[in-house]
């Protein structure tokens, strides 16, 4: 990642990150709010526009790079993490964002996503999750609810859905977070945190598709219910939620979580620790799902581990030190040679 140095970089504004292209998402799409959030956060990072690349695959969300006035690559279905990896390894100084969706990232591109995360390539991956295929007009996606009726599953989807956060934590991602299209301040906070993370930052964004899957997140994100249905994570703070903040989460002796009523006294509750190295607790958090539990938003996991690009650079340096910088003469004459005169 490029060094953040806001004092030296020319002061950029949100406008600097808006491209000249008309935004072509359906009116009312959750993508607009996410685009606005990113365009707000970008100038704060102090990174010049030319050092930023947005890479996407295929799907509604993957139109994103066209709307950012940075470098952008709208690639093919599911392959954005792989393309972004090639860019990052060639130019480790660039900051690279991958924009993907539940179909692009978890279905056709699932393999690239998990391997990118396990390698810890320094990429920021935003997965817009609307639990439907929008661009192809409404088929079931890998995050669609079991039994959901769509064009391709008129009698109900037989699939069991993926939980993107569990996939990320299962792949040992070093940064895993979740936010919501309509919660602008929280969204911007999570984006900033992802930007600051060194390594693969995976962010799931609850996003509404008002045409093919309207209201899919309503039951947890609606103003009236959200304080009971969402668990806002803060590092070092106990897991407390609810309108009155009178509910908390603790572990039973059998290592399963339970909700308990609290009355000011948070002792015995789980205290959020995003920096724990082992994934067990973070995985448990990722499994908290409505209606039994509130769904966690915020940063679940943020641990610093060497990134693939750092290790690659380091290895190259070591070999160069041991063997000397290569030259063609040495290359061609490697191995056994003989002279014919």
């Amino acid at each position: 990642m490029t060094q953040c140095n806001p004092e030296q970089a020319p002061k950029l504004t949100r406008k600097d990150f808006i491209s000249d292209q008309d935004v072509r998402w359906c009116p009312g799409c959750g993508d607009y709010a996410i685009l606005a959030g990113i365009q707000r956060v970008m100038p704060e990072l102090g990174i010049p526009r030319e050092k930023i690349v947005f890479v996407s695959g295929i799907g509604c969300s993957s139109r994103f790079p066209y709307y950012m006035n940075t470098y952008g690559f709208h690639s093919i279905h599911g392959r954005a993490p792989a393309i972004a990896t090639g860019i990052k390894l060639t130019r480790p100084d660039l900051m690279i964002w991958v924009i993907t969706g539940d179909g692009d990232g978890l279905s056709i591109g699932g393999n690239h996503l998990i391997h990118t995360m396990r390698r810890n390539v320094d990429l920021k991956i935003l997965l817009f999750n609307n639990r439907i295929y929008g661009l192809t007009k409404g088929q079931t996606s890998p995050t669609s609810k079991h039994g959901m009726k769509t064009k391709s599953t008129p009698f109900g989807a037989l699939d069991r859905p993926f939980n993107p956060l569990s996939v990320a934590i299962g792949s040992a991602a070093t940064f895993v977070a979740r936010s919501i299209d309509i919660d602008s301040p929280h969204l911007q906070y999570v984006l900033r945190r992802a930007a600051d993370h060194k390594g693969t930052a995976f962010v799931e964004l609850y996003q509404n598709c008002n045409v093919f899957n309207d209201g899919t997140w309503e039951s947890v994100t609606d103003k009236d219910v959200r304080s009971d249905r969402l668990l806002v994570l803060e590092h070092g703070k106990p897991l407390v939620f609810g309108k009155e903040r009178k509910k908390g989460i603790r572990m039973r002796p059998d290592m399963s979580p339970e909700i308990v009523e609290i009355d000011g006294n948070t002792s015995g509750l789980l205290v959020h620790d995003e920096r724990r190295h082992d994934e067990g607790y973070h995985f448990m958090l990722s499994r908290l799902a409505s209606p039994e539990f509130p769904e966690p938003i915020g940063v679940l996991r943020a641990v610093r581990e060497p990134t693939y690009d750092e290790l690659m650079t380091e290895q190259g340096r070591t070999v160069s030190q041991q063997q000397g910088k290569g030259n063609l003469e040495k290359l061609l004459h490697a191995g056994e040679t003989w002279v014919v005169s």
Partner: protein
Amino acid sequence: MSDIESTQSAPGGRQRPMSELETVVVRFAGDSGDGMQLTGTEFTKSIALEGSDLATFPDYPAEIRAPAGTLAGVSAYQVHFSSQEVFTPGDQPDVLVVMNPAALRINLPDLPRGGIIIANVGSFTQPNIEKAGYTSNPLENGSLSSYQVFAIDITKQVALALEGMGLTAKEVGRCKNFYALGLMFWLYNHPMEREEKSIRAKFQKNPKLAEANITAFRAGYYYGETAELFPTRYVVPPAVIAPGTYRHITGNEATAIGFITAAQLASLPLFCGSYPITPASDILHTLAMYPHYDVITFQAEDEIAAVAATIGAAYAGALGVTTTSGPGMALKSEAIGLAVMTELPLVIVNVQRGGPSTGLPTKTEQADLFQAVFGRNGECPVVVIAPATPGDCFWMAIEAARIAVRHMCTVIYLSDGYLANGAEPWRLPEVASLQKIPVTFRTDPQGFYPYLREPMTLARPWVVPGTPGMEHRIGGLEKEDVIGNVSYEANNHEKMVRIRAEKIARIVHEIPEATVYGDPSGDLLIVGWGSTYGAITQAVKSLRRRGYRVSALHLRHLNPMPANVGQIMASFRQVLVAEMNLGQLLMMLRAQFLVDAVGFHKIQGRPFKISEIVTKAEELLGAREQAELCTHAEAV
């Protein structure tokens, strides 16, 4: 063993007479675990140092360790060496060294009558004989009476030689190959000392094993000297070889080194995204040794990620190369379309193997030409080139890189299993003689558009992220001419399709004209591409020696083809296209040039033999002669 020219009796009671040979083909064959590849490469090194010209080919099974003694587990290595120019590893062995009955069973059909068999009789046990599918011992039942058989109990000899060295039975068993090597060193009069040094170097980490192998090697050598089994020893005089420094090189090594060289000549980092696949993996292995040459190797999670990462690297300013074989090629095709649409430089190496599907992973074939030229959705033109020999892989790798970066296009480089693993002595080029590959990244934002084109080549500018003031977006959707914004406009699409085709077509002006081996006109032109070069050239050479008006045309550029191909073909009465497929180049030539060419096909996972091409050519020429005779007869 042909061409015995002179026989000289060496003085001294136990010295055998020395026969001079022009050319020899030796094949070592044994179980996969018998170390035949090592034996072959060690012998080859020594042959090169003795000054012969040579070519080699390993033939190993797809199974890493098939059950010992079975037919599936047989591994072989053939070396052809000569005092004349060598074009192929040889049609058939003169000497067949077999370490077990299965190796004999598999390889005997290739040995001509009168050929030499050196067999490890110690491994011809009843179970091994049965595993090879023999009902009785072929060494004893008279079935080999038309060959010269030398049955030696190598197993026992090695065990005796290594007695008391404190080795396990398994370790002793693994020294058998060096015994066989020692015997060959004696037979062909190679010096022992050099090999002993080589063994010591090879087994540096295990001096005990090094000594054991040297002992076995010497035992083999001295057995030849003492046992009075062989009536003569042989010597192949040095070949007339262009002066220079040489190394032994396989096609895969030459490909890897060629790309590193190309990147250095272009002052670009080299990025190779790859996924392991036979027979291409050695290119990745070789490249991975060179991080200090600005080489980034990335072993991706799959073939698609390998090409996708490479496209990303090219976008970011690297020389992007991805290496694979047919099945991987199939997986990469959508991404190749992206590279064509975004007009980024990309080189894809396809080391072809037998297909379709998993096919024959370790065997050679040339059946991916259509896939390379046509195998994508949409009008998706790419450049296709093919190296002709293992050494030529170096030059064609540079050629691929040069075309890709100059024309901002995709280049498919079609090697094959035969080139990849085949080896030949390769004369090292003078570094100073290598031409730089000019690359300019556009950095001037004034008047910049992503799809502005260089008027000559139609290449669009290469702008790498990180360049201030030139932020822009590219992708797989159709682009508006010049401007580069997404466009679904009907006429614009046709225009862009035509521009992309024209861009590739124009490369014809920058590639060398094709040259004919032999006369520029005649009765028969044999056209080939890729690894058939050696067999076709040697076949034409021998046909010409016999007075036939035959020439050869070898294509290294397949799309576009050199400008003079049509005219060359028109200068011959007949055109024969010999390829290891059912006629893919044949169909392309017929379609492009309306030439009534005929095909000669071999799809056996094995390269053409010289004799097969000679016979086919004779058939075509003979048919014509017969027709002429008929006319004469009628006239009489």
